[in-house]
């Protein structure tokens, strides 16, 4: 009996959890004058999406976010791979101190340092640039630790064999370690992409031109340009447009997504 109640309760919770998404989807597809009423009717339209697309430079925002997300990911992959290899496989002077320094970044992430990092960016004359949005995230302690764990599990014999064949250190890294750590790269990639696609505060502070604005910032400006609830349908459509790509990716690659997060959480 108790078990049955729990089961029903958890299904109810799932429906409750889905409600906000279904509601914003529903609202975004309704004609404007019906957006706030709960009358059931067969009126559905894509007009809100068309209107939103014309009203704000969303194509540019998409492009910017895409560039930022890709740029951060590529840079992180490179810096993290190199550092992770050093921590996993080499004994060197100052290793423990450096390790603690990396740990500190986990606790004090760039998101907290919005004001000091703004000053650094100003000193570098990189305010209102896409590279400025990306730069603070180029080194990821999280990525380093994740890859380090994986590299540690790769047997040393493989490296020796590759060296016998005359591979240099970088070649070994590229031919042995990187391919074997593929699941970790995918896991880290998904976490990083969803994080930077969703990032808002930092791009908001750094940018003030359309050419560099991220999708999230564009959405916030669009939503705030309305005074009342009169344009709910449009704002819902804009919201759907921003969450849709990631949501779609999540639904398509659900297993990998959840496994990735599991993977990155355990290590």
């Amino acid at each position: 009996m108790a078990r049955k109640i729990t089961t029903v309760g958890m299904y109810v919770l799932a429906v409750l959890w889905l409600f906000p998404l279904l509601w914003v989807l529903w609202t975004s597809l309704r004609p404007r004058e019906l957006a706030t009423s709960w009358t059931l009717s067969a009126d559905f339209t894509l007009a809100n999406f068309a209107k939103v697309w014309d009203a704000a430079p969303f194509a540019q925002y998409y492009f910017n976010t895409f560039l930022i997300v890709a740029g951060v990911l590529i840079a992180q992959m490179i810096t993290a791979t190199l550092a992770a290899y050093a921590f996993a496989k080499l004994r060197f002077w100052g290793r423990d101190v450096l390790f603690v320094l990396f740990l500190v970044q986990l606790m004090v992430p760039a998101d907290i340092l919005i004001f000091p990092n703004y000053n650094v960016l100003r000193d570098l004359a990189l305010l209102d640039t896409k590279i400025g949005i990306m730069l603070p995230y180029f080194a990821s302690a999280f990525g380093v630790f994740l890859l380090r764990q994986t590299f540690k599990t790769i047997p040393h014999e493989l490296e020796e064999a590759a060296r016998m064949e005359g591979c240099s250190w970088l070649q070994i890294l590229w031919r042995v370690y990187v391919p074997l750590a593929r699941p970790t790269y995918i896991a880290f990639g998904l976490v990083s992409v969803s994080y930077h696609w969703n990032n808002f505060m930092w791009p908001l502070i750094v940018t003030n031109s359309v050419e560099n604005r991220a999708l999230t910032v564009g959405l916030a400006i669009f939503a705030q340009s309305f005074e009342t609830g009169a344009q709910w349908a449009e704002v819902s459509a804009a919201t759907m447009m921003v969450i849709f790509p990631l949501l779609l990716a999540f639904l398509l690659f659900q297993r990998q997504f959840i496994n990735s997060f599991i993977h990155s959480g355990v290590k």
Partner: protein
Amino acid sequence: MGELRAKWKVNMYAWLLLLPSLIFLLLFTFYPVWQTVILSFHQADLGSPEPFFNGVDNYKQMLEDDVFWKVLTNNLWFALGTVPTSVALALGMALFANKALRGKSFVRTAYFYPTVVPMIAVANIWLFIYTPEYGALSHVMEWLGKGDINWLGDQANVMWAMIFMVIWKEAGYFMIFYLAGLQNISQELYESAAMEGASAWTVFRRVTFPLLMPTTMFVSIIAFTNSFKLVDHLVIMTKGGPDNASNLLLYYIYETAFSFWDQGMASALTIVMVVLLLAVAAVQFFGLDKKIHYN
């Protein structure tokens, strides 16, 4: 001699490999924190064209600032309201989603998807839910025959509204860590418990829960850090209001730095934030973590 050279070579390689990460770490974590410490001892606002040293004035002023205390207590209440509930809920979700049951992946998806929705979009959606008269919650209240409540406009309610929303956003994310933890528990333990005829509750209390302790610790730390990091929604929903009832430390830093342009004060506030987070890390590192792993 050859050995020394080989050693030197390894050191050089290691440092070269670490260099790219180190540069960004220094540039965007350590140097900024250092500069912030210095700036926090200076008067640097719109009234001072050149920042000048003013000792601990910023900190003194901060301690006398009602808004600072309000924001700090808000943040602690926000943490207290979100952390235990979302962690407990995540555990429940994981226990449920881990079992072989019909619609398992549907349930997992439903719980997890808020994680991939940006906070700024969450704010838009929930703004519609909380709006009086037209919002979804109003419709529900009306349907239940209860009066309408202004969730975001009322000082007494706004924090609850935020806490509920953040629990919705985060519980599914934490569920993932519990799912991973559950998969690491040996099946044999459950088998022997079943042989002894232990009840489900006993198994949970004696086996599952204690073995998930490291996960609980890990998730609680993330949840606590997040309660200081999550502020995007304030920009859309309340701007910290009404009368700072929903304001949080990071948003206050943002306002102080970029609306009032009081850089000295923003620096002092940032230092408080950094110290707070490092203190939590230290507690985890030196205290709780050891107890949990080595018992």
